[in-house]
């Protein structure tokens, strides 16, 4: 018979890679079977990369499953009951509390529920003989300050809420053995998901329940209370069929140091609040400031989706890390695709709730309740038809980049897989795979560019890009043409965000590498043209030594010549390069040449079939033409052309497209020059709003719009003051 010391040595080694304490990994293992177990949120991104920690968690989970088997086996000590924890206050040895009752004034009955935070008992208030539920803080007097603060907060929060769908709090206190408790209404109900399953509710029945949940949540939100842990287990449906929300236990603790009391142990510092499956992506990012009431809307979305389809939107995730990535990158399947017959409106509503970016969800729970009511009444919902595409597309593209943790995780995965593939790129197949992965990265990057894609969050995106650039540069050192492609893409994104020095460095480096490669026949004319085009764009905007318009012109000419050699004259992209060449000429005051170049481009495009690209080109050309008119002093013509440009553009882009912002800026400026101040103001303000949203405050166009707005306001304000005074003087009294 061997002694346990055999494995003592192995046990001394850190569990996992040592970066996280054993407790954190043990909790993560427990969380696989108990959704109430809190998890260190920093663990999620770590696990995607760390095999050792994942294996440790697998091992602990296997241990737990194995040991769980023993629960059914009788053991001598369990028969004695000495260790029974069926009631709080009963210590290991048993105490006199059992006789007196751990809570003054109450007699406790069976345990109803035990979660990560507390245990709930059936109880009776002795004075009134009233049945109620008593919740005790798990771990009782041994709990950390963090848990205690949270418990007290829970009491305050729940006590303040009075709503038919929110469980009422009666009173609270500290037990004889020092454990905090509170007594609340005893709800005789069934978990929402089980209720839906048992009654086989259809989509409309489910929607009616969700409408009541949304009403209750809206009520709580109006009082500044966020639930943060909504899930089917926290929503009971009572005998009257009314959903009742329990456990505002994770409601936001406003105390700033609530999560980091000294000595509370590392697992508590970043203790993850909420339950993974129902947690919004921003809750997974671990940034408490990113969390607002819209995380509850996400949770309602998961619950709604689950009730409608019988599965959670991201059911396939095998690890926490995978779940994070899915939540931020994927759009779940439409409920109606899983369960035929579900109204499309419910598709739109659920997917809207499940938007990765909180900004794309409903703004308030009231708005959700309203849309559910509309859908049930057969009225058009406010999440409009076009927003179906909007929501889907947004989820797919724009917002995967906005959640920093997931983006960094993703970058690491992609970078390392590309690096591996490149390292082993001897075989053609491996080579092809490496290229397709690189393509995927580049495509993803391009979509974060506010000018070509949907990127908005400048800081996160640029950090992300810098990270990818660094990760990939080393990997691609032996593949200069791949590196050049990467640098060019990265440079263009920097350019899109107005980060000009970084843009110039990356793009000029790419150009040098690609010129060399082109001369050796390693890349084709189109790639070389794209490289020259990037150079042309960045030189056009260089801030420090001043824009290099002449250098830009040379690069445009090179790009046009290269591209035309392949595509011939009737290629919209080539024609657009010619239009842009005209801008560099205009900036160099070669106005006549600019004019004739622009007219040439417009004439060439006239023969092309109508398309979205064509419309965007036409709008840009009209803008350029208006600019030339303005230079000639023909302001009225310029205004008309700017307005025509905007009309041409609008049907083809989203309302907030940055080109719309620029168009409005041009119109406002021209109106100002024409002394039409009042009508310039709304255009300028709208322009400022769009540009700020799409390009950030640092952008040059944004600051021009901002300056324009303040200038117009000053002038309009001055005039209004004069006008009002005049009016007052003319009043009869």
């Amino acid at each position, binding site marked *: *018979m*061997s*002694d*346990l010391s055999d*494995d*003592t040595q192995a*046990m001394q080694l850190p569990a996992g890679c040592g970066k996280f*304490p*054993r*407790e954190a990994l*043990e909790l993560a293992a427990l969380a696989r079977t108990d959704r109430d177990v809190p998890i260190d949120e920093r663990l999620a991104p770590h696990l995607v990369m760390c095999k050792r920690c994942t294996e440790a968690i697998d091992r*602990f989970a296997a*241990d737990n499953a*194995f*040991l*769980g*088997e*023993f*629960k*059914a*086996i*009788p*053991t001598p*000590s*369990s028969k004695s009951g000495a*260790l*029974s*924890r069926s009631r709080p206050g009963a*210590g*290991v040895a048993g105490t006199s509390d059992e006789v007196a009752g751990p809570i003054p004034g109450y007699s406790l009955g069976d345990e109803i529920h*035990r979660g990560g935070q507390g245990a709930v008992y059936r109880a009776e208030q002795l004075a009134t003989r009233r049945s109620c539920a008593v919740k005790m803080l*798990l*771990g*009782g007097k*041994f*709990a950390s300050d963090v848990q205690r603060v949270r418990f007290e907060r829970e009491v305050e929060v729940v006590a303040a809420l009075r709503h038919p769908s929110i469980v009422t709090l009666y009173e609270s206190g500290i037990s004889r053995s020092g454990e905090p408790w509170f007594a609340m209404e005893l709800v005789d109900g069934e978990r929402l998901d089980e209720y839906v399953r048992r009654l086989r509710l259809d989509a409309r029945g489910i929607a009616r329940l969700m409408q009541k949940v949304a009403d209750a949540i809206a009520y709580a939100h109006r009082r500044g209370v966020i639930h943060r842990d909504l899930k089917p287990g926290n929503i009971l449906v009572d005998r009257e069929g009314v959903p009742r929300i329990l456990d505002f236990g994770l409601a936001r603790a406003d105390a700033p140091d609530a999560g980091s009391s000294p000595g509370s*142990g590392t697992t508590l510092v970043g203790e993850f609040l909420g339950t993974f499956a129902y947690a919004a992506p921003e809750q997974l990012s671990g940034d408490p400031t990113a969390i607002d009431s819209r995380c509850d809307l996400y949770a309602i979305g998961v619950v709604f989706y689950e009730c409608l389809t019988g599965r959670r939107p991201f059911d396939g995730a095998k690890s926490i890390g995978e779940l994070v990535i899915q939540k931020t990158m994927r759009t779940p399947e439409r409920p109606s695709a899983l369960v035929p017959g579900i109204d499309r409106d419910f598709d739109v509503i659920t997917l809207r709730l499940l938007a990765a970016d909180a900004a794309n969800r409903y703004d308030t729970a009231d708005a959700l309740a309203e849309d559910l009511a509309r859908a049930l009444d057969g009225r058009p919902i406010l999440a409009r038809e076009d927003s179906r595409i909007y929501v889907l597309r947004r989820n797919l593209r724009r917002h995967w980049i906005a959640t920093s943790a997931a983006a960094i995780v993703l970058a690491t995965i992609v970078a390392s897989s590309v690096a591996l593939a490149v390292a082993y790129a001897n075989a053609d197949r491996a080579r092809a795979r490496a290229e397709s992965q690189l393509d995927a990265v580049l495509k993803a990057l391009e979509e974060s560019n506010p000018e070509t894609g949907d990127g908005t969050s400048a800081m996160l995106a640029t950090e992300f890009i810098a990270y990818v650039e660094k990760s990939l540069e080393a990997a691609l050192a032996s593949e200069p043409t791949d590196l050049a492609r990467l640098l060019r893409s990265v440079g263009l994104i920097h350019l899109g965000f107005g980060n000009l020095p970084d843009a110039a460095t990356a793009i000029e480096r790419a150009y040098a590498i690609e010129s060399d490669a082109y001369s050796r026949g390693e890349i084709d004319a189109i790639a070389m043209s794209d490289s020259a085009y990037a150079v042309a764009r960045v030189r056009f905007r260089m801030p420090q030594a001043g824009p290099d318009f002449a250098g830009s012109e040379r690069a445009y000419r090179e790009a046009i010549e290269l591209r035309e050699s392949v595509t011939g004259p009737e290629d919209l992209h080539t024609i657009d390069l010619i239009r842009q060449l005209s801008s560099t000429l205009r900036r160099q005051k070669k106005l006549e040449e600019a004019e004739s170049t622009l007219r040439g481009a417009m004439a060439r495009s006239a023969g092309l079939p109508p398309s979205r690209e064509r419309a965007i080109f036409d709008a840009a050309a009209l803008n350029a033409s208006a600019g030339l008119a303005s230079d000639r002093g023909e302001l009225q013509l310029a205004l008309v052309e700017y307005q025509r440009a905007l009309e041409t553009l609008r049907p083809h882009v989203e309302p907030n497209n940055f080109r719309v912002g620029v168009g409005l800026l041009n119109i406002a400026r021209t109106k100002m020059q024409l002394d039409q101040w009042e009508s310039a103001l709304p255009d300028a303000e709208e322009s400022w709003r769009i540009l700020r949203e799409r390009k950030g405050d640092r952008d040059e166009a944004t600051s021009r719009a901002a300056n324009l707005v303040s200038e117009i306001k000053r002038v309009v304000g001055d005039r209004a003051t004069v006008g009002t005074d005049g009016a007052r003087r003319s009043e009869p009294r």
Partner: protein
Amino acid sequence: MDLDRTTTALLAGLLDPSNAKAWEVFDQRYRPILVGFARNCGLKDHDAAELAQAAIVRFVEEYRDGRYDRERGRLGAWLVTIARYRMLDMRRRAGTARIERGESAMIDLDDEQSVSEVYEAQRRRAVLSEALADLKAHSRTDPKTIQAFEMLVYHSVPVATVASELGMTAHDVYLAKSRVAAKLREIVLRLENEYEEGPGDWASKGRRPSDGLGA
């Protein structure tokens, strides 16, 4: 592994009518499993004990007659079949009244698969139970480690509470859990090897034991 306790050794011993030890070990091992199995199939305590007795005797008889070929199936499957036919027989004799009252509706005796599952669950229980007794009786495990394990696993006491009440750190409690898990795994593996009963399932080999009727 205790070679005298393996199924192979037991079966060899059972061939010798004078080998009281083999009979005793076999009985100790399989009787509780069969009793628990019969109870879970809906029998009352008295009937369950009777069934276990009859099934064991029947098995030993058939085995000595050379009707059990180990290469063709597991011992447990053979026992289950004997016991199942025996129970079907009891049910026939008792008439259908009791079934209609729902008393034996816990398990469908006609469903071989679920009957086997009930037996397998009992067998596993027996292994785990023996493993637990073995852990306490033989290993020199620190009593506190076992206590921590019991509080944690049997009584679902939160780690922080276990740690505090036993004067350990939470880390120690988790470590205790891992140690006990590792030790129990080792014992269970050894016991499972001892219980090892031969490959396959007789049902797929086309040969069946006697239906156990007419005993």
